């Protein structure tokens, strides 16, 4: 009898945990889902062309693209600042126009432009933001946000008296005033000094640890490389690539092996023509570019050949191309290199 009860208990707790698992699987549903979104401005300019994009809950998503690519337009439509053309945006499963109250409460937005009412004090503008999003006043939360952004000492200062970088931080603080679950950062670090930039990265990571989903745009590719879980590249209103950062870097990242020779070569010997080699620095340096995707990188073959030819080297090192280089090449050929 007792055994039965124990068994029962085990069974119940097992069922519960499997239920929870199912629930968690359901949660993999994207927090933002953009379907066939297009936008033509009143001027007739076709700013977005059939965008499809899912943002996962809790990730940091970097949206990269050259000036005028449509990043701000996309963000503005999601946040309700610009009327969409065709298509649909779902936030946590809810339509962002028919159910705007539910969806907008979840979102905080830091706009690209430094738009901020300058005669208010920092504290007053924070309370304004929180109230606007329908939250009861909470001085503890406001203090925490301001401290996180090193603005607490400036809380009574009028915004007009703050520096440009501080103003941008106030914009970020305002966006966090209502404890959003999704945060849009449209070029958050433009005009911010190195130290504050690093502390902001730290803050963004802490937000993510607390379950906040973050979508950021930036022209500092190293920032995306440092922060992002996934990267989307947009150019001329079209998304060309959406990929895990590590996968993207592996897929497109080329590695190079640089050999500093003992004696300079006048040209690359014919025996080495099968390798993609480049001779630089007046024949003193031999650079071998190889594909990390390939099973056989060809390094040992190359070294064996060099040994055979009696070409000696005093130093060698390998390097991987940065996200910045990848990005530049992606935008240049509009993602062609990623297509199979």
């Amino acid at each position: 009898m007792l055994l039965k009860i124990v068994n029962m208990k085990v069974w119940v707790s097992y069922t519960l945990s499997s239920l929870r698992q199912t629930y968690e699987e359901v949660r993999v549903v994207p927090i933002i889902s953009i379907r066939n979104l297009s936008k033509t401005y009143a001027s007739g300019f076709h700013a977005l062309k059939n965008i499809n994009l899912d943002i996962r809950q809790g990730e940091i998503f970097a949206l990269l693209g050259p000036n005028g690519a449509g990043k701000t337009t996309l963000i503005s439509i999601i946040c309700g600042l610009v009327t969409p053309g065709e298509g649909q945006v779902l936030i946590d499963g809810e339509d962002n126009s028919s159910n705007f109250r539910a969806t907008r409460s979840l979102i905080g937005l830091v706009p690209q432009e430094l738009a901020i009412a300058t005669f208010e004090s920092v504290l007053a503008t924070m309370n304004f933001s929180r109230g606007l999003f329908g939250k009861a006043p909470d001085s503890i939360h406001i203090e925490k946000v301001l401290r996180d952004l090193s603005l607490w000492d400036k809380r009574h200062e009028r915004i007009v008296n703050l520096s440009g970088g501080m103003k941008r931080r106030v914009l970020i603080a305002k966006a966090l005033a209502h404890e959003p679950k999704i945060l849009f950062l449209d070029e958050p670090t433009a005009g911010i000094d190195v130290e504050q930039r690093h502390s902001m990265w730290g803050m963004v990571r802490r937000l993510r640890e607390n379950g906040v989903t973050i979508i950021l745009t930036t022209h500092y590719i190293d920032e995306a490389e440092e922060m992002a879980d996934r990267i989307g590249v947009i150019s001329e209103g079209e998304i060309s690539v959406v990929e895990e950062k590590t996968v993207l870097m592996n897929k497109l990242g080329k590695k190079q092996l640089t050999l500093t020779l003992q004696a300079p070569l006048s040209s690359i010997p014919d025996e080495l023509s099968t390798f993609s080699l480049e001779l630089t620095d007046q024949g003193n340096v031999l650079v071998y570019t190889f594909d990390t995707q390939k099973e056989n990188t060809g390094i040992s073959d190359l070294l064996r050949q060099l040994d055979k030819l009696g070409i000696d080297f005093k130093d060698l090192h390998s390097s991987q191309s940065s996200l910045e280089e990848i990005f530049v090449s992606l935008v240049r050929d509009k993602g062609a290199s990623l297509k199979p």
Partner: protein
Amino acid sequence: MNFYAIRAIYVFEMSRTWRTLMESIASPILTTSLYFIVFGAAIGSRMGDIDGIPYAAFIIPGLLMLSLLGESISNASFGIYFPKFSGTIYEVLSAPVSTLEIVIGYVGAAVTKSMIIAVLILITAYFFVDYEVLHPFWMFGFLLLTTITFSMFGFIIGLWADDFQKLQIIPMMVITPLTFLGGAFYSINMLPPFWQKVTLFNPVVYLISGLRWSFYGVSDVAVGLSMVMILVFMLICLLLIGWIFKTGYRLKD
């Protein structure tokens, strides 16, 4: 209802009022005093009574309207125009607030300010003329409905305007002439019959007439008609604002 949002907008707008206290409150009082000195004391002493009311007292409702229409429009239009101009409107547009809540916040603040000014003008007038208000409750009602309506109208102008000039043009080119011609300084019975008919197309006539009735019990048109006209105008403004937010006209593109 997002009451916190309404309060946030209202508090923000009112803090702007307190910051610019001198301009926002002193100037209408000064202007009204000047009117009393010129029309009330100097010219008025040579004028006979109108409808049995001394001229200086007769013009009080008209002067109130003159100030209130201008103030309501400029307060509300500037309140929404400036965020649009400076870009801070993004926050309101991205917030979970409905059109109605936005209007209540902005228009509510403009109405508060206009009503404060109305009270100050009434007090100022007391220093120049002896007057009594026959129907204080209705006076308050007319003032409130008028300021609400014209604050909404100002709100529409602020949404529509895409430069500072446009912000000024309607109050200057439309409202002030209509008020002057709407019986602020005379009874429309004093006009030739033809112009009396024309004047009835001027909506301000109904506002001033109604308000004057609440003061002295005399009016150019029936009080009920005045009330209906105000409500109709208010409804038109509400519908227009609703349409603007629905289509995003001048806000979201």
